[in-house]
């Protein structure tokens, strides 16, 4: 199991595009940018819909269940903020409701060796400070 206790995660700085994402996460809700013209979910947030170029975009809550699309296991301590946690798994998750919207995360509460493409995961929330809560992932109950 990776020891995250001494890792110092950099704190996300919300901007005009991303503030609704972080506001929702603070409330324990995963919300993604959705095109109101074609219904496409996308992440990271952008100025236009990457599917139809519409600018009519709104953040909508999603369930936060999905599968591991890919992963890497980090062994190199080059990023000193995470040196204490190596080896650790950084994963990419594809959500059931938002195909194509790939979210980065870590696989929490389980050994990093459990990171495998296709495994089921669900979102959990990790508070970093009073302003920022980080969406994270753990294995779904039927996988754990």
């Amino acid at each position: 199991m990776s020891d995250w206790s001494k890792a110092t995660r950099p704190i996300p700085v919300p901007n005009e595009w991303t503030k609704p994402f972080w506001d929702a996460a603070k409330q324990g809700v995963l919300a993604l940018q959705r095109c109101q013209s074609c219904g496409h979910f996308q992440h990271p947030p952008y100025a236009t819909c990457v599917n139809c170029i519409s600018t009519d975009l709104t953040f909508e809550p999603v369930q936060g269940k999905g599968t591991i699309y890919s992963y890497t296991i980090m062994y190199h301590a080059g990023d000193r903020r995470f040196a204490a946690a190596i080896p650790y798994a950084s994963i990419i998750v594809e959500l059931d409701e938002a195909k194509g919207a790939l979210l980065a995360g870590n696989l929490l509460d389980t050994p990093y060796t459990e990171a495998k493409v296709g495994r089921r995961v669900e979102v959990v929330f990790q508070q970093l400070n009073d302003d920022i809560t980080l969406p994270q992932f753990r294995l779904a109950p039927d996988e754990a």
Partner: protein
Amino acid sequence: MWENRCKVAVSGVGFSKITRSAEVPLAAHALQAVQAAVEDSGLAMADIDGLATYAELPATGHAIVDGISIVSVNCMMAMLKLPNLSWHVQVETVNIGGAVQQAVNALLAGVCRYAVVWRAMHNPRGTYQNLPGTYAQGAAQFTAPYGFGGPGQGMAVAYTRWLERHNQKREKMATLAVTQRKNANKNPHAYFYGTPLTREDYLNSRMVAYPFCLYDCDIPVQGAVAIVLTTAERARDLKPRPAYIAGYGQRLAFEVAGRIGSLSNYMEGGSSSSRLTWERSGFTPKDVDVAQIYDGFSASVIYGLESYGFCKEGEALDFIQDGRMELDGELPLNTFGGSLSTGRIHGLWHIIEGALQASGRAEERQVKDVHVSFVGASAPIVQGTTFIFVDEPY
């Protein structure tokens, strides 16, 4: 086909000393490489009237000091004081391949006669990706908090996806690293010249960011390389045999910044760039006698081979086996050693080797009967450019 094919050629090429870390300011490396390229052409420095580069330092968290950590066009102008300078450019979007393409365009437009393009790369002291930041701004706010620090991990998740999707094994990549090292041992300018690498070395090396082990990553070095470009007519009057530029292309696709793990980004970047190159030159992958494909990380070669059309998606790791990428193989690949073995100088060295192979000047590494020489000069994802050099106009 392109009406301007074979109207511009690469003439001289030059190399600085390649060192592991900075012993002299980077400007001295760049100057050495430019002087060597001009001398190789048999020109005088006063003949040079065009300058182009891509000056980015890919290491983050370090001070950018012109002449120390980058060598800009301004820096080169200040050093050379060229009496006949008539054109210059510093590109932003597609790395050094873009600078070479701008120089081709300037020569075609007749706004300069002899252009020099250089790429100078600094290896800063301490950690290459220096990431002490307390905050994650911009696109990094969705990746850095999860430990996606440098570009390696972003590349790694795409490679994991590729391996799993195509039911492939990372161990097969040993062939690439070992063959390239063998080639580098025929290239006296390469950082790893004189240092052999075995299949066992690769398989036993430490993991960096799974699926990448140490030998899947190019080694940061301090150094510079340079080329002289001129019109085909002028090139024929110079000392070296010209390598004619039959066609080029640049990636025309770009996914939203911060989106990682997606393979489509590589495939669309590479196929859009190569399609232009095939159409402009009139060649197809089957016509290619030798290829240089950018290898900052080993997996870039895989995406290159597939997106440029040398093999089908999912087949590149099998394609490079059984001697196919050797100097006498079906498609000799990264014949100079690639960035994995020469050191991290980005794509200009790939372009140089492509030109040397086309002009029959690759010495011990020369592939027999080269007519069509292909170059993929950067990772297809963000900075991709492609080129074809030929030995004779057609």
